[in-house]
């Protein structure tokens, strides 16, 4: 059962992708299969999480070939958490995508691409092999490109070109780095790499390869100064697509940094800690400045993704149990909140007629519930207690203080205020300001906003709000889990033993 649960998060979306592709001309059927698959995925990830919590790390050797020769899938607490959140996001967005615009989207091929993207993300979160990680990066890249240009508007093609060019180059660096690492260590298995890396003779060359890995992961995670692709593209995507991008894409980059730099290059933390710390700081600041500078809801939200990536990297920069727990907590919180904000932005556009703050207004008077549903994720993003973001921020800052990283912690604090500012900017303009004439005149097209559409739009938003509130008000289980995940990340010996068996060296010797 463990082996099935381990692969299910990859296989379920894979099957959904294949089956919906088979049913290309039948969008309605595709849609139902899509939602069902997402629900099944979510359930399977929950079961996997339960398995990890009760029975420890789940490891599977694909094809039963012993590690490090075959490909190993490894799900530790962090991976399990990421998979659950992936399942949740897939379900939320799949339901949301049944809302307005579904017919057009599904005819264009949304469903197969969407599930392919989810498969890539799930694969990246499950794998214990550096090259296999690269493969999942490719899957994500191609699928996301297809999703991005789904509507084929002029601005989408423009954004899509920037997106795909910059990401292709970034991914190419990944492949190059994989080659370099393989050349130096003779292995691709992460656990085996963790074992071998400290013994590599030319640590300078290994560090150079690691920096190249960091650059490619960093480009994926949209850190400063490699984030340009994100603000160039995200605001052009349709809302379900933007939501799933915002939730998962950059987080895979962050996850890869956490995984590889806690596991493989931890012995060189003295070098990478400060590098990642500086990058984290600049990312936080430049990202939030971008959000403060813009007046389009989608652009503001896009820049916030960047800013918050910085918070997540603080954990890797400091690499203390608390800091990593903060990173885990922050990622989980952020994914839920950020995706939800994009979903809400879609609803705002639907009822308000625009994404531009200048053209929005009066929503608090006419749509108080929508206002509430905006406030919960928005204030959570800004770290206002007692919502989920507060706890993430609290842990990140405390771990910064404990590690005496004063500057890093101070920047994280100050950025919080600017985050609040830009969220309040949306609130003031879209909800409080009197509706401008054009917004007042806007009415959703009849038939496009029926009961089904309303359910599809608001059910995911309400559910994600509930998750945010739950993390905020009932923090203990999430905090405890994050700490456990951090402990697991720092217990390299356990990871290596789980993957390679207790006597990996003998195994390798025996093969020779």
């Amino acid at each position, binding site marked *: 059962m463990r082996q099935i649960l381990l692969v299910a998060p990859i296989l379920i979306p894979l099957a959904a992708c294949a089956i919906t592709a088979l049913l290309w001309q039948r969008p309605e059927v595709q849609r139902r299969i899509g939602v069902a698959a997402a629900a099944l995925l979510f359930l399977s990830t929950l079961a996997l999480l339960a398995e990890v919590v009760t029975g420890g790390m789940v490891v*599977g050797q694909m094809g039963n070939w012993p590690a490090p020769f075959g490909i190993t899938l490894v799900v530790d607490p962090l991976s399990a958490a990421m998979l659950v959140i992936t399942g949740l996001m897939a379900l939320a967005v799949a339901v949301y995508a049944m809302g307005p615009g579904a017919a057009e989207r599904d005819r264009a091929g949304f469903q197969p691409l969407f599930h392919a993207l989810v498969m890539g993300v799930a694969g990246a979160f499950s794998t214990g092999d550096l090259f296999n990680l690269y493969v999942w990066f490719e899957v994500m890249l191609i699928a996301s490109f297809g999703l991005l240009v789904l509507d084929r508007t002029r601005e989408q093609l423009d954004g899509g070109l920037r997106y795909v060019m910059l990401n292709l180059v970034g991914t190419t660096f990944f492949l190059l780095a994989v080659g370099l690492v393989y050349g130096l260590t003779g292995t691709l298995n992460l656990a085996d790499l963790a074992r071998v890396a400290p013994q590599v003779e030319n640590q300078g060359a290994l560090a150079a390869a690691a920096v190249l890995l960091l650059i490619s992961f960093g480009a994926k995670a949209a850190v400063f100064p490699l984030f340009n692709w994100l603000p160039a593209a995200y605001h052009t995507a349709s809302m379900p697509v933007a939501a799933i991008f915002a939730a998962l894409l950059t987080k895979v980059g962050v996850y890869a940094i956490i995984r590889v730099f806690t596991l493989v290059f931890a012995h060189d933390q003295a070098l990478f800690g400060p590098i990642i710390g500086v990058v984290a700081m600049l990312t936080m600041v430049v990202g939030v400045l971008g959000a403060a500078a813009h007046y389009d809801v989608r652009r503001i939200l896009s820049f916030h993704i960047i800013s918050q990536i910085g918070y997540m990297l603080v954990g890797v920069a400091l690499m203390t149990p608390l800091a990593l727990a903060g990173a885990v907590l922050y990622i989980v919180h952020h994914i839920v909140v950020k995706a939800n904000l994009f979903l809400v932005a879609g609803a705002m556009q639907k009822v308000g007629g625009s994404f531009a703050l200048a053209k929005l207004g009066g929503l608090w008077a006419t749509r108080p519930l929508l206002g509430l549903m905006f406030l919960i994720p928005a204030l959570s993003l800004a770290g206002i207690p007692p919502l989920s973001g507060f706890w993430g921020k609290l842990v990140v800052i405390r771990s910064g203080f404990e590690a005496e990283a004063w500057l890093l912690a101070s920047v994280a604090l100050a950025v919080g205020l600017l985050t609040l500012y830009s969220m309040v900017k949306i609130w003031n303009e879209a909800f409080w300001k009197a509706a401008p004439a054009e917004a007042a005149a806007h009415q959703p097209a009849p038939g496009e906003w029926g009961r089904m559409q309303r359910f599809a739009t608001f059910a995911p938003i309400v559910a994600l709000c509930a998750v945010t509130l739950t993390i905020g008000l009932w923090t203990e289980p999430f905090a405890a889990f994050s700490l456990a995940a951090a402990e697991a990340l720092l217990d390299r010996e356990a990871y290596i033993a789980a993957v390679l068996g207790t006597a990996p060296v003998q195994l390798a010797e025996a093969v020779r």
Partner: protein
Amino acid sequence: MDASLILRVSAPLLLWVPAIVSLYLLIRGHNEPGGGFVGGLVASAGLVFFVISRGRQAALRVMRVPPAGWCGIGLLLAAGSGLLAWIDPAAGYLTHRWWFPDVGFKVPLGTALLFDVGVYLTVIGTITAMVFALVDED
């Protein structure tokens, strides 16, 4: 009289010969150079000729299932071939199972071949999809 007529007449030939060659490549791939990927490419080459000479509709009739569907079936086959691993529930996914039925000599039948068929179909689907999308509308 022009080249297109020659092409039109020879198209079935150009379709089926590569198809048979591709199957041969596919089957022997496990032991000799070949395999699903190359096989798929060769088969697609025939289909590309067919599309260029007879048009998309004709090619579609031959293919029966649209290219996206070929991709879907290919993916399902490749992924599905790994499911037999769980004859032993503790085995890792994609543990291939082998049978050696004796028909005078032992025929190695394994789910690895099924996997390769999946690769083969997906490659065909991919290339024809692209060609379909790129050729002008008829």
